[in-house]
């Protein structure tokens, strides 16, 4: 087919070499690779910060963080890194760049040059964030950056401003990336690749891109107001000038809630591909799956104030947000049950990606039902700002989303590198990570039930027990992460070569029709999909 031909002429045109290849890149695969590398680097830093947090919380009393501002900066930096510089670059920038063009049969992205600036903007934003953390006390505001605490009276100095500008750059990157992916998906599908034939991963990226496109600018607006409040004397969030600190919370969460779906929806896409492949079955209820994501994305825009139940909103407003939030359980349930139905009747195999996918389904439901519990404003009185919330969102983000990243990584690393990962080690990695994160985050539910507040560097002695267990879990998890890094190294250093389709009959999407590693240019002759129906 087309691919052999492209492979033969692999570097027929200006295949750039050396540093220019990366710095000036207009190639979706190279850019995707850079995103993934950045994500791993940020994961190491953000993970190290979280381990420091857990070491501090391992015992009551002050362990080694005597400067509580530093503790708050750790929490803030950890969250920003993980959310904006680990998960988003890995899934949206990394896998999105690599596999959307491959899966829809396009030769590259719609705007390759813009694609490049999207990546380097994140890199610059990462540097700004790290500078921010280490200037004059750093931003000890939490990732929610609530004023007045983030205002200039309480955070003088450049740290918060640097953080704001870092988010501005990361946001600009996301908006450009979103435009790029949407246009690619709408405009560059191969002949016959109709919307309703697109692999679900492409659908997931499409929905995510729309969430980014419409949510990030609202954060940008809020950040701009915060910046002018801090530096130019405006009063958006300043009570003394007639402003309103709660306005920030609305703007932040109007962005923030879609943001959490930005984090998980590409994961839904990855899991769909993996489950279908290793069940050797097409996805069950494909259309329902696609439109469930659309619906989740849509409703995701009208539930934001469930993060503000204790801010003093009136009861009727909260009642609305309770109802709207609960509704999201329905399309999410459709996804869970459709995955199970896809596996039902399949001929299941369990290489590492499938293990991660199964772990995802189970643990995402765990995190999902605690979310549904939190949605009840009346009960949230007991849980808001406690470790119950921390447990909830780590189940959906640090566990579910990260499991899906690993699933995608093992699923596609053969395609990306041309090398087989060490299979047994990968399974060990799964089990260590799986056990580690559960030991780490499950006890946090108990701490939250018992009333332990979040964002504190020390706690009343009676909370010690489960904190200790949680910290042990963090250590297990970080060892598993070291193992992961070793696996990456092993794959590149000594992995066997893999064929174009390493997964066999279940892998029906287009990326498995091109060589491994995928050549520099692919689909230069557009695959004709008018006869095959890949997704159904």
């Amino acid at each position, binding site marked *: 087919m087309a691919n052999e031909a492209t492979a033969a002429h692999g570097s027929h045109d200006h295949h750039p070499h050396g540093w220019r290849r990366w710095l000036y890149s207009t190639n979706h695969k190279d850019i995707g690779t850079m995103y993934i590398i950045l994500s791993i680097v940020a994961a190491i830093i953000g993970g190290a910060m979280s381990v420091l947090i857990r070491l501090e919380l391992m015992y009551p009393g002050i362990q080694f963080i005597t400067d509580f501002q530093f503790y708050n900066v750790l929490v803030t930096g950890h969250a920003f890194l993980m959310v904006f510089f680990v998960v988003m670059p890995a899934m949206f920038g990394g896998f999105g760049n690599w596999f959307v063009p491959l899966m829809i049969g396009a030769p590259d992205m719609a705007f390759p040059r813009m694609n490049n600036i999207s990546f380097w903007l994140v890199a610059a934003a990462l540097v700004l964030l790290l500078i921010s953390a280490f200037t004059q006390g750093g931003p000890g505001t939490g990732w929610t950056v609530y004023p007045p605490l983030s205002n200039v009276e309480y955070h003088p100095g450049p740290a918060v401003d640097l953080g704001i500008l870092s988010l501005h750059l990361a946001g600009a990157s996301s*908006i450009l990336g979103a435009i790029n992916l949407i246009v690619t998906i709408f405009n560059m599908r191969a002949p016959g690749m109709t919307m309703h034939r697109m692999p679900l991963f492409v659908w997931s990226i499409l929905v995510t891109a729309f969430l980014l496109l419409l949510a990030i*600018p609202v954060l940008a607006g809020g950040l701009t107001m915060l910046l002018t409040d801090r530096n130019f004397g405006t009063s*958006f969030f300043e009570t003394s000038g007639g402003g309103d600190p709660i306005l920030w919370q609305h703007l932040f969460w109007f962005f923030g809630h879609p943001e959490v779906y930005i984090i998980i929806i590409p994961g839904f896409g990855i899991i769909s591909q993996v489950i279908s492949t290793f069940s050797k079955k097409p996805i069950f209820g494909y259309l329902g799956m696609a439109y469930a994501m659309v619906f989740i994305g849509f409703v995701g825009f009208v539930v934001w104030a469930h993060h503000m139940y204790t801010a003093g909103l009136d009861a009727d407003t909260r009642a609305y947000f309770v109802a709207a939030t609960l509704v999201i359980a329905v399309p999410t349930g459709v996804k869970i049950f459709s995955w199970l139905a896809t596996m039902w009747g399949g001929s299941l195999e369990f290489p590492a990606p499938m293990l991660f996918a199964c772990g995802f389904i189970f643990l995402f439901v765990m995190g999902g039902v605690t979310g549904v519990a939190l949605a009840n404003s009346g009960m949230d009185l007991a849980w808001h700002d406690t470790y119950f919330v921390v447990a909830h969102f780590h189940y959906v983000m640090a566990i579910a989303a990260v499991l899906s990243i690993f699933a995608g990584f093992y699923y596609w690393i053969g395609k990306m590198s041309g090398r087989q990962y060490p299979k047994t080690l990968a399974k060990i990695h799964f089990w260590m990570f799986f056990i580690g994160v559960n030991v780490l985050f499950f006890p946090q539910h108990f701490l939250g039930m018992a009333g332990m507040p979040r964002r504190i560097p020390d706690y009343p002695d009676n909370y010690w027990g489960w904190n200790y267990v949680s910290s042990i879990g963090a250590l297990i998890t970080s060892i598993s992460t070291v193992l992961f890094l070793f696996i990456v190294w092993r794959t590149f250093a000594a992995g066997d070569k893999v064929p174009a389709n390493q997964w066999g009959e279940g892998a029906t999407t287009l990326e498995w029709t091109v060589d491994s590693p995928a050549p520099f240019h692919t689909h230069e002759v557009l695959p004709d999909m008018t006869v095959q129906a890949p997704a159904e």
Partner: protein
Amino acid sequence: MASGEKTHPFHMVEPSKWPVVGVLGAFITAIGAVWYMQGGANWVLLAGLAVLFYCMYGWWREVVHEANNGADHTEVVRHGLRMGMVLFIASEVMFFFAFFWAFFNATVPMLSKAAHTVWPPEGVIPLDPFGLPFINTIILLSSGVTVTYAHHMLKLNNHARCADGLFLTVALGLIFTCAQAYEYAHATFGFTDGIYSSTFYLATGFHGFHVIVGTLFLGVCYWRCKLGHFTPEQHVGFEAAAWYWHFVDVVWLFLFGCVYWWGGLGYMHG
């Protein structure tokens, strides 16, 4: 599939230095802005902005070359470019959404306990909406007409008339900006005078900024029109500029209706 022969309608862009130049500019601008806001000198900021402008110039020049070489901007690619512009405008709409939210948060008690029951707040003398702002509305609306006129002329392949239309549009844009500057200079409330000023200046200020960007964009189109870059079929750059201009126009109508007129009612009656 001989080498170099393209078998698809898409644009495989050559590697380019402009993105990293742009990021460098953005990074220096960010650092410079923080330094400046912390009371430092402003030359880092200015240097960063200079690099950014250099990037824009170089990048867009590249794009213009590609648009003119007759090969890269196929029908499909142009379709994609138009789509991209629409999406970009959608994100811009959400950016203004935030500022309108701030405005209504301060004025509509249903939205916030901190909303002011008297608006404009006591002591603020708002601008008369039917003075300069109204004239500005007319200016912007007419500029919408002139840009549509230019578009029609372009479709009729009448480049001279098209350029005339664009010239008028740019001129109207400039007049609008001057009028806005005059209005700012003569307003009775300063930039830092509380929430009224904050919402007013940032909402209208960002709009003004978009007017300037749109004027530049149309200016480039004027110049390209003169140079004969556009054909009745192929003029994505023009369309993008025109859409952007209409978007700026619509934002103004909302600003005029909500901030100037509705937001001033409390004063006139009270």
